[in-house]
């Protein structure tokens, strides 16, 4: 119950005092009698000696105010605003692929990396996307994202959005809906597609073969195409998309979105060869000879199973096989049957939901982990439970009950803990058993690549466990000119992580072909750590500041077929959602008013126009006569525009209303200080786009935080 950690050996509620030793007594008397008399007189001379000794030493004080011994970087003095939002002030992060990571690293070093970008494995510039979307430049937004994300429309549906969990807006209310904005950008790109999608010029003679048309393969293909190479993508299935097609259910990713984005890539010059099975149809050696470089992005092909009795009974299947069948035919032979899904990951949840949609009468999800530690994303679990999936947590499979070679049920054993003290996977089982009747058992406990066929006849060797030895950072295999990326390298993971590895592989291939050492002067993606935010508390937050709510199909309806669950944001919703972005770490004031809201003394006054398309800060006042130098405002500032200066004691401000004047700011590139102007003159803010009317009254009165307005 205590809010802090005490010494482990002590019960927090134990209020018994510690053993107290009393060694020191404050009382101190002279000895009695003549000795005391001598002590008293000698104390006089001891005192004189002490002061004399100090006087003999050089003074160690300092000449104030000309020098200061310590000038801490944490001066909490008067404030400085480094810039005010005009629409050109914040750039998007744009750089050709090889230099992009370098750019990210520089920003990270300068502590100017927005958390959404830093937390994304592929460093997608979500801030720039929101900037363009709010500015009604959806095509720019889409292309900005596509530079790093290759398939924004797809990822806008299925990404697990690490960007949103790092979004600084979590600290204030709710994160920006970055993933739905990808989708908005994709949808609005439709009208620009014809004029914008052009064939990329092939400027180089080298050709690259890519095996697999999943996210990582397509990303590497797109990167290499932009560099001017000719890229051939081989896909064994008749349709491209890899795991996106076979693994991701259609209710999350409509097939036409995937097809559209792959078609865009083809329009840009990617040559796609479907139905070609490398290994059996075309030996990989042939590719190695034919192309300058070969990239294996084949993904994972089969599901892991458990070595338990009756695992080969009829009715037991693996997740990949089940999903492949379910996604292609919308019928996996579970109609009217009772389905048990073993596993607690996202794939397991997908299986359960697909089984429901294929007509299973009841679907149970059994996992070793307890409900709180399920590895699947919480929103997916929630959606699955909404649709009627039953979760049986903390149970592990014991054996399959199959009396006649056909599944009739499964015996489950209770699981006490999944991980040991060091965090390794080491499940501890209890004595409790439970028999569950079911007709189909789907094991979704992991996947593995199947590369034996692919590499047969080549010099590529697989490890004993069937894995391809790959350098995890350079994406090279043991054979020069052959690279690998995607889940072949990383193991089961997210689509965005595969995309990130595709970028790395493309960079390695570029270097290989151009004859540059693969690791020479190479910058790897920085992995900053961001604070984890708790569940947002929305009481006390005005509705206009909240995140746009994603409309969802009703839980009972949507489980019947493969129609999309998320219905998507409208254009207007998308624009205002994009305008919520705080432009983190841009060092430009965006008029979020969090400083004014936090200021305990009403010393800050922020005014802005609040139209999403042309949002602009029109006035920023700091009343130094009210400021109590608590520093909360600068701590709150999401953009780092507001900073403390070293002016606490050496301040040369007049203590009257001071105004941060935009024209003043433009004169002084390094930022400005309070000008001491009277508060009446409002400097007009001229953004590059729409001019702001002279009457710059804020459209949203709640954003005008000033004492006169607050009195109610």
């Amino acid at each position, binding site marked *: 119950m205590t809010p802090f950690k005490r010494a482990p050996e002590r019960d927090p509620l134990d209020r018994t005092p510690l053993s107290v030793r009393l060694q020191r007594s404050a009382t101190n008397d002279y000895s009695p009698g003549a000795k005391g008399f001598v002590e008293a007189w000698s104390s*006089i001379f001891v*005192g*004189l000696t*002490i*002061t*004399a000794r*100090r*006087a003999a*030493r050089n*003074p*160690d*004080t300092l*000449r104030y105010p000309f020098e200061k011994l310590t000038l801490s970087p944490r001066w909490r003095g008067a404030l400085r605003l480094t810039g005010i939002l005009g629409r050109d002030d914040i750039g998007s992060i744009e750089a050709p692929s090889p230099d992009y990571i370098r750019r990210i690293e520089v920003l990270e070093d300068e502590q100017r990396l927005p958390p959404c970008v830093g937390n994304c494995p592929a460093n997608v510039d979500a801030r720039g996307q929101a900037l363009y979307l709010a500015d009604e430049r959806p095509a720019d937004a889409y292309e900005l994202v596509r530079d790093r994300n290759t398939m924004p429309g797809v990822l806008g549906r299925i990404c697990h959005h690490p960007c949103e969990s790092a979004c600084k807006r979590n600290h204030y209310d709710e994160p920006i809906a970055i993933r739905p904005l990808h989708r908005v950008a994709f949808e609005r790109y439709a009208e620009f597609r014809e004029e914008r999608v052009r064939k990329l010029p092939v400027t180089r003679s080298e050709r690259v073969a890519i095996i697999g048309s999943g996210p990582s393969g397509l990303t590497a293909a797109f990167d290499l195409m932009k560099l001017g190479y000719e890229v051939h993508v081989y896909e064994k299935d008749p349709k491209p998309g890899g795991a996106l097609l076979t693994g991701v259910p259609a209710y999350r990713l409509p097939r036409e979105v995937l097809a559209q984005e792959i078609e865009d890539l083809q329009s840009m010059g990617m040559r796609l060869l479907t139905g070609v099975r490398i290994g059996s149809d075309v030996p990989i050696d042939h590719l190695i000879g034919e192309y300058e470089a070969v990239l294996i992005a084949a993904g994972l092909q089969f599901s892991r199973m458990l070595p338990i009795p009756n695992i080969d009974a009829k009715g037991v299947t693996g997740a990949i096989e089940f999903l492949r069948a379910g996604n292609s035919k919308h019928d996996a032979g579970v109609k009217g049957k009772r389905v048990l899904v073993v596993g607690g990951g996202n794939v397991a949840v997908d299986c359960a939901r697909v089984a429901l949609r294929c007509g299973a009468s009841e679907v149970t999800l059994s996992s070793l982990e307890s409900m709180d530690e399920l590895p699947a994303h919480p929103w997916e679990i929630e959606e699955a439970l909404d649709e009627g999936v039953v979760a049986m947590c903390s149970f592990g499979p014991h054996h399959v009950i199959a009396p006649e070679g056909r599944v009739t049920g499964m015996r489950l054993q209770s699981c006490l803990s999944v991980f040991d003290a060091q965090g390794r996977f080491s499940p501890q089982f209890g004595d409790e058993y439970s028999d569950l009747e079911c007709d189909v058992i789907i094991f979704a406990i992991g996947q593995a690549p199947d590369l034996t066929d692919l590499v047969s006849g080549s010099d590529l060797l697989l490890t004993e466990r069937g894995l391809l030895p790959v350098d995890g950072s350079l994406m090279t295999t043991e054979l020069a000119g052959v690279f690998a990326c995607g889940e072949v390298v990383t193991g089961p993971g997210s689509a965005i992580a595969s995309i990130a590895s595709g970028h790395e592989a493309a960079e390695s291939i570029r270097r290989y072909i151009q004859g540059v050492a693969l690791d020479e002067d190479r910058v790897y993606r920085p992995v900053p750590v961001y604070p984890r935010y708790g569940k947002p508390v929305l009481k006390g937050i005005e509705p206009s500041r909240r995140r746009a709510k994603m409309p969802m199909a009703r839980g009972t309806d949507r489980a019947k077929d493969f129609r999309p669950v998320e219905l998507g944001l409208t254009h207007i919703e998308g624009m205002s959602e994009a305008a919520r972005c705080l432009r983190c770490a841009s060092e430009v004031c965006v008029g979020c008013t969090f400083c004014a809201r936090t200021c305990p003394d009403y010393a800050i006054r922020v005014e802005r126009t609040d139209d999403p398309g042309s949002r602009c800060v029109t006035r920023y006042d700091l009343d130094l006569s009210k400021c109590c130098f608590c520093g909360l405002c600068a701590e709150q500032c999401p953009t780092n525009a507001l900073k403390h200066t070293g002016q606490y004691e050496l301040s040369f401000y007049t203590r009257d209303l001071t105004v941060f004047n935009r024209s003043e700011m433009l004169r002084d590139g390094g930022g400005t200080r309070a000008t001491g102007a009277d508060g009446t003159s409002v400097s007009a803010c001229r953004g590059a786009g729409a001019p702001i009317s002279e009457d710059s009254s804020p459209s949203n009165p709640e954003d005008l935080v000033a004492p006169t307005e607050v009195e109610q």
Partner: protein
Amino acid sequence: MSALLTGAAWGLAAASLIAVAALIGVWWERKVAGRIQMRFGPQEAGPAGLLQTLSDTLKLMLKEDITPTAADVPVFRAMPFLVFVPVASALVVIPYASGWAPFNIATGAVFFLAVPGLSVLGILLAGWASQNTYASIGGVRAAAQMISYELPRTLSVLSLCLLAGSLSTGTIRAEWRWWWVPLTAVGFLVYFISSIAEVNRGPFDLAEAESELVAGYFTDYSGIRWAIFMMAEYGGVVAASLFGAATFLGGGLGLSGVPGALLFVALTALIATAMIWAKWTFPRMRADQLMTFAWKVLTPMALVQLLAVGIALAARVVLS
């Protein structure tokens, strides 16, 4: 008439001496206190901040001279001078050279001990005339303290008079022998301590105890009148130091000529510095402790000193 002129001339000289001494004394005290407290002291105005006191004096002269409405105005206005004049007059009986004092009277020692004591009247009346609780208490405290400390101070000087066989300060300096120093060491200590008390300086500055009485008897004074009180205090310090150096230490330990004069000045500065040193080292005593100290410690010590000198003189007579 000529005596009056001479007196006026000497008085002017004494006042100037005090003014200069106070200027330097305040600066020196600030420097010493600064060093003791690990500071630099004044350092901006003039070389090593020497002009700081001058600028402060200028400021004090330009400040408004405030008289409280409740005060007894004529008394209130006059008292700074009544405090200053006796202190300044003490300077004219100090033997600046062997056998010579500006106002070399036969009872110079008595004059030196008695006349500055008249300033107690000024302090008492200053406190009373302010019509302020703190000032009144400060004035009463100062009166009790200064009168009490007259006794051990007089007794300690008396032993010198006994040795020299004269009450004339000039004679005392002329008659000085080196062996007086060890013989009158205790007397010098008593003289030193009671002089501090006499000029109301720490650790005996109860009359102006800033933590209890805000500023004691001159709480309500400001500007130049306040400055005159301060000058009187520093004048007292200078007079006590000069007299101590001239008589107890024989004015340069018996040396004559230029080195003797330099040594005299150095010893005077030493005694003054010791007073400053003590002030910036010790806490302040309480009124009853101060009285106890005067009557139960210093007076017996001075009497013992007197007795020792008497015995020494008697022994000398017997031996010779």
